[in-house]
């Protein structure tokens, strides 16, 4: 960009500082208050880990966390498998219709509330008992779309002639996949899986509609929503801090793998 006057440069730094303050102050306040000794949401009365300890004794939260882990692990596994195969299948053929493109893109842009009510009506028309399994069925829908788009991005620069070379040299399709294709796309597959895992752990609306009645299949976001509607407690602050730390770690890892890929 063109040379800038010192005044212009100061303005740009000011803009950056204000935007980052806006983005991080709300989160920072929340994290700070999770270590607050007192039960009051605001007045600081000393450092304490007691709210984290009280989380460990809260059975509703622990069972919700376990449910979330089950849903995220199972839906991520299925979505990673299906999404990767889909990505390879698409990139193998040189032409595909706009309809296919739209079908794969749709889960990423369709409003959550629409997919949520659609699945709720669908499952109840089928007289299906809803629970963790229906949440998993639903989460795979958007997770596979995200995995597919991450893996496809990697395959764009893939040299398919090496697959042919492998076949010409007598390798079976399975050996070629395991020894040639998979090593190339693996970082993208893992990055996609981590992204899917994070999305599933954080997803609230679709889970809320497809969990069915009863508390047995409450996921962590559903539990958090119920707690937030009650009001502010230091316990939510502590829980929020842990959830944020987990998703930010997963995302940073996913980002690193993706960057490593670009460097290859």
């Amino acid at each position, binding site marked *: *960009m*063109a040379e*800038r006057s010192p005044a212009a440069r100061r303005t*740009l730094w000011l*803009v*950056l500082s204000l*935007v*980052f303050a*806006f983005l991080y*102050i*709300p*989160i920072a*306040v*929340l994290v700070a*208050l999770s270590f607050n000794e007192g039960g*009051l*949401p*605001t*007045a600081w009365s000393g450092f304490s880990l007691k709210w984290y300890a009280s989380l460990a004794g809260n059975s509703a939260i622990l069972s919700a966390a376990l449910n979330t882990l089950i849903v995220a692990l199972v839906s991520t596994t299925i979505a990673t*498998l299906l999404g990767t195969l*889909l990505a390879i*299948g*698409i990139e*193998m*053929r040189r032409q595909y219709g706009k309809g296919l493109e739209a*079908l*794969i893109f749709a*889960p990423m842009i*369709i*409003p*959550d*509330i*629409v997919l949520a*009510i*659609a*699945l709720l*009506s*669908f499952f109840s*028309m089928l007289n299906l008992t809803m629970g963790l399994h229906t949440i998993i*069925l639903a989460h*795979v*829908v958007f997770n596979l779309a995200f995995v*597919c788009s991450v893996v496809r991005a990697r395959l764009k620069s893939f040299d*398919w002639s090496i697959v*042919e070379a492998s076949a010409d040299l007598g390798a079976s399709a399975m050996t070629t996949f395991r020894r040639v294709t998979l090593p190339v796309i693996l970082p993208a597959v893992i990055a996609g899986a981590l992204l899917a895992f994070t999305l599933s*752990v*954080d997803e*609230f*609306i679709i889970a809320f*509609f497809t969990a069915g009645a009863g508390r047995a299949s409450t996921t962590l*976001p559903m539990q*958090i*929503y119920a707690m*937030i*509607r009650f009001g*502010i407690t230091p316990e939510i602050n502590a829980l*929020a801090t842990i959830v944020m730390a987990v*998703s*930010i770690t997963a*995302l940073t890892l996913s980002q690193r793998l993706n960057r490593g890929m670009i460097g290859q």
Partner: protein
Amino acid sequence: MRSFTPSRSSLLMAPALVWLIALMVVPCVLVLALAFFRRGIYGGIDYTFTLENFGLVFDPLYAGIFLKSARIAGTATLIAVVIGYAAAYAIAAAPRRWQSVFLFFAVLPFWSNYLIRTYAWIVLLNRQGLITQLLRWLGYTGEPPSMLYTEGAVIAGLVYNYLPFVILACYAPLSRLNPELAEASRDLGASAMTTFRRVILPLTVPGIAAGAVFVFVLSIGNFVTPALLGGGRFQMIGNLVYDQFLTANDWPFGAALAMALIAIMLLVLTAQAIAANRASGRVEAAEGNANG
């Protein structure tokens, strides 16, 4: 020449496509079809054809909620675009090696839980929150202002949640901008303001459009932010749909509302595609002139 048979690629794609059709396409078509039926007396569905659910969408009461949702989403979009564009501009103007770091930290909050990011605003805005305390510290002694459970709180929450995406969308065209274009404009005697308005802004419209559409579409159908920051009785379209399905038990009307929501979304996406198409012509022309 690739020697893969189409059948092998179809085989690879089949499981995912079956999943998407069975658990996205079919349910969506079914729920939208519900809009053409009557609500049963005891809350179920009475399968006689009717168009009255769509008429009800235009009932002043519900049309008012649509207008209010559009107004809130529009305001949030405008604010997010202004702040996001300024931030993206500042990031693109930073030294190269800092740009990716700034960008990463601008997007990071976007990946943490949506409910938690919204909850953070309850912590900030409530009557004993940080903002009230800040006012006290500045010498304000009156009744703490009610900031939570207002339209302003809902807008703040939406801007906060979707700002990172606007920054990302606007950064892409800003970072690709050919610096020689701005220099040429300056050399020809244009002021910094004119250069921005006549050269930089038109070339970055695709990014602004993409960011704006994203914020608008996600805001107008939002259900969590109005429910948490707007208070119990605050309603936007998303909350209305939620009520029809989970409390009022009028699924056909809820389906009609969802259909209206999708129609608005498609309209906005089409407008964006048109804006992006026009702008890409401008970018090509400008690049051609700069290189030629």
